[in-house]
């Protein structure tokens, strides 16, 4: 398909503003002006609408296909969330308004929303307070590791290390490293989790804390989580909960009760806001009481008269992690989602997500290797290692699923399982969808034995397999018309 730049016709316009209604002004001196116009496309509104509509049709999405991408929680995104996010009283609200004199009164609805959303998340996770500022999950992790650092600075502790399981999301060690910590990897045991013995072995006075995903990326709940937390606390370390998999335990267990001191949530995973093809998300961070003094500035507070205000006077704050109050329009969608579901609905999420995953695992168990064969939570990891013996890799399985109309699971993650396929069906999918997916996976397993070549050629179209090596070797990341 042609690029929008290749559809350009000199002189064609897609949008024209009203001509100026003020007297013509003197031009700015040349030295401040660009030498040439920005070569943006010259296209009509119809050109644009048709181009992007056609592009959109070249995507799989939750709205069009089953999308069991593990650890990403690709649940259905209710349509009314899009409407409430666009209410003019929210969409048109300038973020600097509350910084004007008496400006807080101009944004009472928005501040109330942020305050209430934080309280609800606190109740759901068992945390004392939330900052809504982090702009995505990894940004929440960075905020969390900076909070850990602030805590230890305040305590006069000299801590240099964070323990992170080898099954953890790549963002965990990356966030720890850019906040200035050394990463110590904790090994996964034969039960698919990090055991207390492994933690004990790694523990010393240099340990600032531990980041844990629970259930982990293998979809397994660590029954020793409280003991691990006690161990980490024994060296004055802090327990960080990576909330990517909170969907599994909503209404059943709370990170605060499990011994965690900080948690980030991915609102775009657990709380129904759309993933947008890779964002925007939101990654609010909740903390227990003793970390509240370090939260980012500003904090929304409720006054005794029932009004809301932004407090910037936080002596021990880590400072400003975002320009304002977070990805507000994402937070408000998640807030509406929580109100819509309510207490019972949140529990139904976990119940159905876990039931769907276990049912699907049950259907696939005989056909794929299951490295840690236990009751799973909201997701599970299987391996194509058996198929690999016939030359069919996890990647081939993924591409063969595309031919059958399914978005593939997460592949080659977690790194500790070879030929891994990480499947997360979410609570929203029906039994018939799960059955259709299982049928396809079983058919692929059969073809891996009978006709492996047919899978190695997948997908068969409309877009056939892409050459990723060539893309990296011969970098073309910005369009240059021929001959330039």
């Amino acid at each position: 398909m042609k690029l929008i730049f290749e559809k350009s016709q000199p002189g064609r316009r897609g949008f024209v503003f009203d001509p100026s209604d003020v007297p013509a002004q003197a031009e700015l001196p040349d030295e401040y002006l660009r030498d040439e116009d920005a070569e943006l496309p010259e296209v009509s509104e119809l050109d644009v609408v048709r181009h992007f509509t056609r592009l959109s049709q070249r995507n799989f999405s939750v709205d069009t296909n089953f999308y069991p991408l593990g650890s990403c929680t690709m649940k259905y995104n209710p349509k009314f969330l899009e409407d409430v996010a666009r209410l003019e009283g929210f969409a048109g609200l300038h973020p600097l308004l509350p910084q004007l004199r008496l400006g807080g009164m101009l944004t009472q609805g928005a501040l109330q929303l942020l305050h209430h959303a934080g309280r609800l998340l606190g109740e759901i996770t068992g945390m004392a307070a939330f900052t809504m500022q982090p702009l995505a999950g990894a940004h929440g992790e960075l905020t969390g590791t900076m909070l850990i650092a602030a805590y230890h600075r305040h305590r006069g502790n000299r801590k240099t290390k964070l323990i992170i399981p080898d099954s953890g999301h790549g963002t965990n060690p990356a966030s720890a490293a850019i906040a200035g910590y050394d990463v110590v990897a904790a090994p996964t045991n034969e039960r698919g989790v990090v055991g207390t013995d492994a933690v004990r072995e790694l523990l010393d006075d240099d340990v600032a804390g531990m980041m844990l995903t629970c259930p982990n990326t293998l979809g397994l709940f660590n029954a020793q989580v409280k003991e691990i937390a006690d161990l980490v606390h024994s060296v004055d370390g802090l327990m960080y909960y990576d909330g990517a998999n909170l969907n599994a335990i909503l209404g059943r267990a709370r990170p605060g009760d499990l011994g965690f001191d900080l948690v980030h949530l991915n609102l775009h995973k657990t709380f129904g806001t759309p993933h947008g093809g890779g964002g925007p998300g939101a990654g609010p961070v909740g903390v227990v009481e003793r970390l509240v003094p370090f939260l980012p500035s500003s904090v929304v507070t409720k006054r005794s008269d029932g009004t809301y205000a932004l407090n910037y006077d936080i002596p021990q704050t880590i400072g400003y992690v975002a320009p304002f109050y977070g990805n507000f329009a994402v937070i408000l969608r998640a807030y509406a989602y929580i109100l819509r579901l309510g207490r019972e609905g949140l529990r139904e999420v976990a119940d159905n997500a876990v039931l769907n995953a276990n049912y699907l695992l049950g259907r696939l168990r005989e056909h794929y290797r299951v490295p840690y064969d236990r009751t799973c939570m909201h997701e599970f990891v299987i391996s194509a290692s058996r198929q690999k013996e016939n030359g069919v890799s996890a990647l081939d399985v993924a591409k063969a699923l595309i031919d059958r109309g399914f978005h593939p699971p997460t592949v080659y993650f977690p790194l500790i399982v070879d030929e891994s396929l990480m499947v997360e069906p979410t609570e929203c999918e029906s039994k018939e969808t799960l059955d259709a997916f299982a049928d396809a996976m079983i058919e692929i397993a059969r073809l891996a034995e009978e006709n492996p070549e047919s899978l190695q050629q997948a997908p068969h179209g409309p877009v056939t397999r892409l050459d990723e090596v060539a893309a990296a070797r011969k970098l073309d990341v910005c369009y240059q018309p021929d001959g330039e």
Partner: protein
Amino acid sequence: MAYVSNTDEERRQMLDALGMESVDELFEDIPEDLRCGETDVPEGRSEDAVHRHLHWLSEKNAAHLTLFLGGGFYDHYTPAAVDALLRRGEFCTPYTPYQAEVSQGTLQAIYEYQTAICRLTGMEVSNASLYDGGTALYEAMMMALRITGRNKIIMDSGVSPIYRNMLQCYTSNLKVDFVEVPVRHGQTRRDLVAESLDDETAAIILQNPNFFGVIDNHSDVARMAHEVGALAVMSCYPVSLGLLKTPGGMDMDIATGEGQSLGLPLSFGGPYLGFMATRREFIRKMPGRIAGATVDREGNRRYVLTLQTREQHIRRESATSNICTNEALCALGALIYLSLLGREGLKQVAGLCADKAEYARQRLEAIPGVEVMRGAPTFNEFCVGLPIDAGEAVGRMIEQGFAAGFPLGRYYPEMSRYLLVAVTEKRTKAEIGRFADALEGVL
């Protein structure tokens, strides 16, 4: 209601297949003493009840004010087609395009976005987006530290104080040495920059137009930085690039900025769009997703995420950044906005902003007691000195229906009588006239 599809009967069949009586059995790995009782979350409500509640909250915000308030975040008009396309579920509900064959729509759009950002900024390569203008500037600083292996950063105080606060926060646990260089009449002080630059300097960070609205040609500053082996980093306002000299044209090494003005709503602070562009030689040091062109088995031009070995999901603690989810849908919105406006439209909107701001500046200057900061050219935002405290004046103007600007005293205590006024293409001559009259009335 949890948006589940299965009926009780289907759940029964699934439990039967698992040989289980109840869903509770699936949660047996959670030790009993760690399970939570009923949470204090309210009961679920209907869609229309939640909608009514959100509507009620939205009405408690003063979104009706006529905005002369900017500070890096602007009230531009967005053509309707932008949001109509962003609402398409095929764009809105996929995730990061890891599976390229079924994500060509998103991937081609990222490639087009990168191209648009390069053409806008005059730079060679762009990533797929970062969270916002502030985190983009932080990532640029980290990139400069990595590239040079040095740890001193020179910060022009014309850079948004909002961003400077963020950079301070992010480096609190790292060894970064900040030197802040004050401005004079809103302009970068070359003499002080020259004094501060040395062979330990990783980068000088600039902004154009700067927080005071002042525009500059920083080509000489970039040259000074390069002479000592430091990088020049510039945060910029994309709409202004319809007219103004580009960071590429000034020989900057990294350009970043806030993309909100490209068709995204103000939405009380987000989601916004951080953009970043740099030299081709630095592409492997750049954080974030990057889409690249390749071919499929038939030799057709296609797109994939490329250079992923820089990223956290592969490189873990050695990655260039921890970023995973970025602002893909916002970047798509910016691309659609730039496509609709095109080369003429972008020039037109930038010209309208500059002309209307200059007109407003003249109107305000005519008010007795009001003094306009002169000496340096501005784009669509400018400082005015008032005879009274600017915060007080803004408070009075709210009663007249205007968000009159940003009182600079908040970040620059010595400038408490100064007001930062922003004008976009949306402000009409009549509105500007009423604004000037109202300001005269409240002083």
